[in-house]
């Protein structure tokens, strides 16, 4: 589809000629995010620098009924930022100011295009911790993290992104600028729109400023690795850890295929002969961390670990965590089409879910590697395929439909941290039910009467 006459000129008026991209090549570069198999080109890419510019673009878009897809770094894995109906991609990557880091109030205020790692570094420079820690932290933007409620590696002990969003500035599709929440933990005035917008995936409003809570930086961080014969064994160790009353900061697992791929990239000396590894870690006061690591080692050993080692220093801990964060792209070394999914089940069902995934993969004749956040039951079964093999891709879709159904059967969910986007939308009703789907649509209409914001995604 093309744009109505005059829209491009008006956009240039709003953001300047330099902030509008129209050439075929420039549009092609915005046809996809990190989700495989979803491509659609926008008609124009717009780079605003201020909230006023975002508001003016949205007013214009509502007036002319042009679809708008807000986009950060485009690292999401559910096609949330693919412009399925064309229109405007609103790239927020030039809104990159850290407006405030306050050590007394323990908060930071940033524009949406700041990368997660930059915010974490700015906090760390003041001896503060920004908790949310998604795998894509060096690339992904804070705005994108909030929009998808990205989780990460610290979910078990600390919760996910939504637990740290204190306030938002957001522009409604009709152009009004609202400020939800603010600088307070305790604030119950009105509906909790901060939580509603967190995870709304750019379908209700465009986030233009985010206020996040920070914590004092823990004095010590420690990490260890336990190797097991199988992922199911590792899951049993997770159960043993939790039932012993320890809530570690990190509890991540990789299966044998993931270990091999990560080792190929990061060359850390991981054991290739083990069926699975469990990366455990804790932070806090020095004595507490040291004590917990020793207990974790003991529990893993008793649960049948082949070998358990503790990282000797912070640098080694960081390297191990960094390697874990790159599991997905590293897996693509096995085959260039990787479909990664994101189911979560209650922790006691973790081992059963892993068995289910293995059974389904075997039945469909697919290579599915699994890694994830064992501590919070969040699994990433990842199918590695040949992109030319349409028949295998079809089988993979069928297999994942069964995996989602199994997760729901276990009282789990179809996405724990990546979001719904276009990729999970067909499965959303299975999780929420028809009544809730209708409510979602009514909420969507209240925010976005013209239906211009990110069509084809949640609420559509």
């Amino acid at each position, binding site marked *: 589809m093309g744009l109505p006459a005059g829209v491009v000129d008006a956009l240039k008026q709003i953001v300047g000629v330099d902030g509008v991209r129209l050439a075929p*090549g*420039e549009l092609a570069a915005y046809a996809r995010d*990190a989700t495989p198999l979803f491509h659609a080109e926008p008609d124009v890419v717009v780079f605003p620098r201020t909230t006023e510019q975002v508001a003016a673009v949205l007013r214009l878009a509502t007036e002319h009924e042009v679809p708008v897809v807000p986009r950060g770094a485009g690292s999401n894995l559910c096609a949330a930022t693919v412009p399925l109906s064309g229109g405007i991609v609103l*790239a927020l*990557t030039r809104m990159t100011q850290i407006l405030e880091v306050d050590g007394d109030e323990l908060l930071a205020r940033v524009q949406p295009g700041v990368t997660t790692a930059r915010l974490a570094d700015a906090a760390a420079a003041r001896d503060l911790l920004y908790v949310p820690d998604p795998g*894509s932290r060096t690339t992904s933007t804070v705005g994108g993290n909030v929009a998808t409620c990205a989780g990460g590696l610290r979910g078990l002990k600390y919760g996910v992104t939504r637990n740290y969003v204190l306030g938002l500035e957001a522009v409604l599709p009709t152009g009004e600028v609202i400020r939800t929440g603010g600088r307070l933990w305790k604030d119950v005035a009105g509906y909790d729109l901060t939580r509603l917008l967190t995870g709304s995936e750019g379908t209700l409003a465009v986030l233009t400023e985010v206020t996040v809570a920070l914590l004092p930086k823990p004095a010590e961080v420690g990490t260890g690795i336990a190797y097991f014969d199988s992922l199911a064994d590792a899951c049993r160790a997770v159960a043993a850890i939790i039932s012993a009353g320890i809530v570690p900061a990190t509890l991540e697992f990789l299966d044998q295929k993931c270990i091999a791929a990560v080792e190929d990239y*990061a060359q850390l000396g991981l054991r290739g002969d083990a069926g699975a590894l469990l990366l455990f870690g804790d932070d806090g006061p020095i004595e507490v961390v040291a004590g917990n690591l020793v207990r974790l080692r003991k529990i893993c050993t008793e649960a049948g670990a082949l070998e358990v080692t503790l990282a000797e220093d912070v640098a080694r801990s960081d390297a191990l965590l960094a390697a874990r964060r790159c599991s997905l*792209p590293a897996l693509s070394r096995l085959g*260039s089409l990787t479909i990664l999914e994101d189911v979560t089940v209650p922790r006691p069902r973790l081992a059963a879910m892993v068995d289910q995934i293995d059974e389904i993969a075997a039945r469909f004749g697919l290579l599915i590697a699994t890694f994830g956040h064992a501590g919070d039951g969040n699994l990433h079964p990842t199918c590695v395929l040949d*992109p030319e093999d349409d028949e295998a891709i079809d089988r993979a879709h069928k297999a994942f439909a069964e995996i989602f159904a199994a997760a729901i059967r276990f009282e789990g969910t179809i996405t724990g941290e990546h979001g719904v986007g276009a990729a999970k939308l067909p499965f959303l009703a299975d999780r929420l039910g028809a009544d809730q789907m209708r409510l979602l649509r009514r909420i969507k209409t209240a925010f976005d009467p013209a239906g211009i914001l990110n069509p084809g995604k949640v609420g559509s």
Partner: protein
Amino acid sequence: MIFDDDLLERCISCGFCLPACPTYSLTADESSSPRGRITLMRALETGQLEPDDPTLVEQSSFCLGCRACEPVCPAGVQYGDLLEQWRDHQWQGRNRPVLARLLMAVVARPWLLRLQGLVRRHARTKVRGRTYSLMLGCVERGLYPRVSRAALRLAPGMQAPRAQGCCGALHAHNGSSVQGAEMAEALGKRLPGTIVTTAGGCAAHLSAHLGRDRVKEFSEWLVEMGAWPQGEVRVDGRRARVALQDSCHLRNGMGVTRQPRELIKAVAEYVELPGAGGCCGAAGTYSLLRGADSRKVLAPKLAEIEAARVDFVVVVNPGCLRQLEQGLRRSGSRVKAVHLAELLTWAEE
């Protein structure tokens, strides 16, 4: 087929490369990121875009070719190879910048390079053994002959044969990779034994064609030989404060980062620049072809160097030396840019 299929398919668009890319950090625009450029290459491959498409023309030349995206890519995309193939297709005939054509014609003629030796007193020795040959490099020979002299002083056992040519990196990076490969192989035949080079860019290109064992970058070679410099470099009676600017191709292409730092630490107080691993904007012919962009990439680095309060900033590649020398001079800095080999010869007992 323009691209090696396997190379192009490797990218899964995860975006881990974005923060490493110097041009993306200038524009925040996907089409000037490695992931976006690979999307453009795919569009070229499938015929969705023609070679004269303005975005393809612009982006193929806007890319510095620094390969900072390679070490951060968990999927193992070999972007440098893709860029060479891209330019091979796109920079044919009139599409290749005139200046690049001129330089390529000059350095492809060994006799012209040898003529430089009449006016520039670079290192030269008779061919004595067959163990280690110092490569003179086409740019360095003309601009910084003192570097090869310094290298020979530090490693008296090395030979510097006169009959050398250019390694062909310039060709490979400017859309003529077949000729670039042929030149590397020809140079490999002319220089006996292990080839040692004081230019990071040449080292990466040569080792890609002659094998990693056959080619050593100078700092790598010194450390391997255990030829540690003695003494220390002093400024105003104190130990000099020295920073390093990595050579992109040495760092991202060959993974050599530790050795130059160790050598500096042996003779001076080493200061790590926060952006030492990021491109300085020289990028071979880039500083000549795209001066304004080159200076934009350099600007934050100059600020870092000033803030670090160092006496010298050391480089391991002649292009970077020229870039930093000019940048520091223009900004009125008192910091001097020097090649590692020069710095090491200044160490006094």
